[in-house]
């Protein structure tokens, strides 16, 4: 083997090693990035509330901006009523419970949605009932064959 051949072999080995090293470092970067993202999702940010006699709507908005949760409620809920809340927690359930303490509002959490409704703890409240109504289009003409689903179960957003 000539010196030149030796040199070529050496070069080739060096090349392979360098490439391997680059590949390993790339994989490590990818894994680290992925792990960081996963950790961020598993540890939702802490929700901090410090309100004295503030409007409920204001407090709910604050929770929405600090977390991935959205509130759903209808006109039965008086969001202008004042509430006080001093809490720092990453558990949405304890945050909402603290906010609604002293009101007649109950809540249910489904996926990223917090549903508010009146009359928590009332026995009559959990009674099955019939709801009826009419579905129209924007012009007030009846729509035939609209799917109407009543559900306490998680509903995936459209």
């Amino acid at each position: 083997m000539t010196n030149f051949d030796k040199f070529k072999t050496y070069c080739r080995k060096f090349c392979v090693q360098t490439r391997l090293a680059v590949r390993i470092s790339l994989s490590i970067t990818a894994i680290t990035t992925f792990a960081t993202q996963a950790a961020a999702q598993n540890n939702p940010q802490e929700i901090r509330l410090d309100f004295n006699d503030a409007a409920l709507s204001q407090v709910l908005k604050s929770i929405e901006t600090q977390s991935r949760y959205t509130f759903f409620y209808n006109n039965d809920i008086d969001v202008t009523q004042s509430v006080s809340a001093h809490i720092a927690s990453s558990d949405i359930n304890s945050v909402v419970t603290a906010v609604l303490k002293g009101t007649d509002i109950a809540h249910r959490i489904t996926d990223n949605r917090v549903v508010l409704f009146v009359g928590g703890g009332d026995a009559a409240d959990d009674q099955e009932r019939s709801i009826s109504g009419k579905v129209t289009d924007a012009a007030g003409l009846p729509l035939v064959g609209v799917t109407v689903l009543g559900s306490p179960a998680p509903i995936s957003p459209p």
Partner: protein
Amino acid sequence: MTDVNGGYTVRVPGSGAEIVYSYIGYQSQQRIVGSQTVINLALQESTAEIARSW
């Protein structure tokens, strides 16, 4: 499913229940039952367009 007059009746388990209304070509809507026994609503046409293929 709504009838020819757009009317419907649905049974729900309690006041915390939700009702979802969906119809092809219209935006789905959700309502929380609360203390209501009659819920009328109007669906808005969906503005999403089917992509043109030409």
